[in-house]
């Protein structure tokens, strides 16, 4: 059975739960647990997939609940319409929730989202003409479908159906293009932007998707409960949802739902045995969650996965994967690149200046890079090479000067747009997506070339180019010498392999200009020679390369043109031999003993 089929079977099993519990109270309780499992999946999407902490999800749930209840009670809207309106309004509030994430992260974002949830809670309590104040809404009509209102069995079935759909969508999203962008931003914002992924769109998208899920959960909760009050959505409920997501495991889109089931299940579904738990939910589960997190950083889902893996290995039915860990034999394969007609000046840098506080890192730097050439940028440590790459790719904004790519000004563009124009880069300190596999890293690198947004991702629509992309990704990995490591996570690779993977990710963009920051670092001599041959083949294929490197023999054997930077200024420029003989260069750089 494929993992996909097994997943579907689990979701189908959820639909049978309402028939397992026979009495009405248990069925209502099941609907309640379902609503919280959905809301916790919302947290899993924003905090797990997109990596943005939210301590205000009870507020988003409340937005959905009060909107839906208000429309049904005051305006007589049918359930389905009120439910959709509540979900939509919560998604809208999610945009506001996401705005602070564009500026701050971590603890600060926790504080901002806590504040957002708190503000909603206070508005619910104070704007009593709209929300009923502390008393809330009573006698909310039960959910109805096709004009028939649902009883306990129907309500529980509806909740389980919605939970199954949410989990299905969250699982699809994780593996889609949009979900890859979320995870890429979570793992490395710099790497994501350099791959053409819009960081702000991914963050806001994460918050909106998550808020819609939480809002739907709230609307469902309002109608199945029949009564809501602000106290049901106070900040401690937000903590409970986060607790559920962490306990279940943030590394999985299903962790939130599992955590909610573990925390609420016993006291809600078996009240006679576990009623004492209810009063101690956070206190009892908090330390448990912490222990789980310290022992199993990826929560219960991760722990279960490992357990199942071990059991299977024990039974000997597990497939042991053959991995080729040695350096792959040299292949003549060259990944496709975007060819600009040779002889054209591809990149023009004019008078770029950049200061950090009082320190001038770049001073009036100008250079031109011809299409189809390898242009090396050398200079002593701290001479401004990496800063220049940052200014070219939009990772930093220069204070003055202009950068043009094929005649188009790019110095004011955000990094992901510059990447989308065909400018790929690698980083001095590798900026990979650590928790993603090698293949996923390369697929994320192809982001601007692929199609499919949030909706397509959630529905699991895979377009033709997506499966082609996977094939292409494997080819690129083979080309850089990573065949056999496709399913390994980036963090598990060696330093040299990570450098290769980053090169592969950059090539996935099909760039016209490739900026490499010390690609030879972490490679031994034979590997450096191999890299040199590979870069030469890329040049023959028509790719233009701007190379920052310390390894002099490597640079001199490879580069068509060399520009030397010292203390932020261009001190020499020309073909490798001339530059090498230049007294200014000898003094600034080679004089330090390298010559």
């Amino acid at each position, binding site marked *: 059975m494929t993992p996909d089929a097994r997943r579907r079977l689990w979701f189908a099993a959820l639909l049978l739960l309402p028939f397992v519990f026979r009495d009405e109270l248990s069925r209502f309780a099941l609907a309640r647990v379902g609503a919280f499992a959905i809301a916790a999946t919302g947290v899993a999407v924003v905090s797990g997939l997109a990596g943005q902490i939210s301590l205000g999800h009870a507020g988003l749930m409340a937005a959905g609940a009060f909107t839906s209840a208000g429309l049904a009670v005051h305006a007589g809207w049918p359930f389905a319409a009120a439910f959709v309106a509540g979900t939509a309004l919560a998604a809208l509030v999610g945009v506001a929730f996401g705005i602070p994430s564009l500026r701050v992260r971590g603890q600060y974002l926790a504080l901002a989202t806590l504040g957002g949830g*708190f503000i909603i809670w206070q508005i619910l309590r104070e704007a009593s003409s709209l929300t009923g104040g502390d008393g809330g809404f009573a006698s909310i009509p039960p959910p109805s479908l096709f004009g028939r209102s649902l009883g306990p069995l129907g309500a529980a079935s509806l909740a389980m159906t919605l939970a199954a759909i949410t989990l299905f969508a969250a699982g699809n999203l994780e593996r889609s293009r949009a979900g890859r962008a979320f995870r890429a931003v979570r793992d490395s914002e710099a790497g994501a932007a350099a791959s053409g992924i819009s960081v702000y769109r991914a963050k806001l998208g994460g918050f909106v998707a998550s808020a819609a899920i939480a809002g739907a959960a709230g609307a469902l909760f309002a109608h199945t409960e029949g009564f809501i009050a602000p106290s049901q959505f106070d900040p401690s409920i937000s903590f409970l949802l986060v607790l559920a997501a962490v306990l279940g495991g943030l590394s999985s889109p299903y962790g939130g739902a599992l955590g909610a089931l573990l925390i609420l299940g016993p006291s809600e579904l078996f009240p006679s045995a576990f009623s004492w738990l209810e009063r101690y939910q956070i206190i009892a589960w908090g330390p448990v969650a912490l222990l789980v997190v310290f022992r199993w950083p990826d929560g219960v889902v991760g722990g279960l996965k490992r357990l199942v893996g071990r059991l299977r290995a024990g039974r000997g039915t597990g497939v042991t994967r053959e991995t080729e860990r040695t350096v792959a034999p040299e292949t003549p394969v060259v990944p496709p690149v975007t060819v600009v007609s040779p002889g054209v000046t591809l990149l023009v840098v004019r008078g770029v200046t950049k200061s950090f506080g009082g320190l001038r890192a770049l001073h009036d730097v100008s250079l031109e890079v011809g299409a189809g050439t390898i242009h090396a940028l050398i200079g002593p440590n701290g001479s401004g090479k990496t800063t220049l790459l940052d200014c070219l790719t939009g990772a930093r904004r220069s204070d003055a000067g202009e950068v043009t790519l094929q005649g188009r000004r790019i110095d004011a563009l955000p990094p992901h747009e510059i990447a989308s124009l065909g400018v790929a880069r690698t980083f001095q300190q590798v900026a990979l997506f650590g928790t993603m596999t090698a293949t996923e890293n390369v697929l994320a690198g192809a982001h601007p070339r692929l199609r499919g947004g949030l909706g397509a991702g959630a529905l699991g629509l895979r377009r033709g180019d997506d499966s082609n992309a996977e094939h292409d990704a494997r080819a690129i990995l083979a080309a850089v010498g990573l065949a056999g490591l496709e399913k390994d996570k980036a963090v598990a690779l060696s330093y040299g392999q990570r450098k290769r993977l980053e090169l592969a990710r950059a090539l996935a963009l099909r760039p016209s200009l490739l900026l490499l920051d010390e690609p030879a670092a972490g490679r031994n001599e034979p590997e450096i020679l191999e890299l040199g041959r590979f870069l030469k083949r890329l040049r023959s294929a028509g790719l233009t390369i701007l190379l920052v490197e310390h390894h002099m023999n490597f640079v001199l054997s490879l580069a068509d043109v060399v520009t030397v930077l010292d203390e932020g200024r261009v001190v020499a420029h020309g073909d490798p031999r001339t530059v090498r003989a230049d007294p200014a260069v000898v003094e600034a750089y080679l004089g330090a003993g390298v010559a």
Partner: protein
Amino acid sequence: MQHLQALVTGLGVGAVYALIAFGISLVYATSRTLNFAHGEVLTVGVFLSLTAVYFNLPSWQGIVVGVAGAVLLGVVLAKVVFTPLRRAPESLAWLLGLLIVASVITNASARIWGQRAYSAEKLGIGSSLGADNVVRWGGVVFPSIYVWLFVAGLVLMVALDLLIRRTAFGRAVRAVAHSRRTASLMGIDTERTMVYAFGLAAGLGAIAGIMFSPLTFVQVQLGAFFTFKGLAAAVIGGLGSARGAFLGGLVLGVVEQVALIYVRAGYTDAIAFGVLILVLVVRPAGIMGRVVEERH
């Protein structure tokens, strides 16, 4: 008139916020973590003071008991919870850990002192600060307690500022805040500095809580209230800066009181958070924090 009155009450309340924010900022400077349990710790101190005077101790002894209790709790928190949690900074596990600590303290307090709202009258802070007197300035009338709260807060702030700027402890705090590693290489015991910072923060917080007690009823929910207000003030002023915390507290106090002229009292906390979110979006480093683009 109304605005002048709001300014004076705002400065009085703001002085209390400032002392709480100072504690949060100090803990942040030495541990790089926002203490989401700060208010809960100091509230235990306030309860201990009340309990002591309930057993007929004189009120100065009650205050000593409360402050000492808070210091002890703060130090225990630093040793038992923060040291292990700091291994996973910025992670959700860390955040959850602190929230759990906060709710454990709240629930334990509720076990001991119940959900009741106590009057702090017996501590005698209110009467000695002139809660029943009013001051008249021209046509403006306000309870003199706000003036005294502001004065007392200001005296403490000046003392704390000297502590941070002029003493060996202050130098250690500033060094650790700048770079934990470098400070440690220079021979500063960063762990001990952090523990002292926690103790000082908790004790000061208890003093602030006791100062505030005549203005409200003492109940367990006060913990979350103090935490939120302190965090908001510390971030508004600029985390890690003592003077920023003072300024943030005063600004928050005045903004809340002025806003009260225009909106219902129930919205004051929402306004504090609104200002906080605005600051985070517009100027994340806060009023006094420096924004410097770093090279690497």
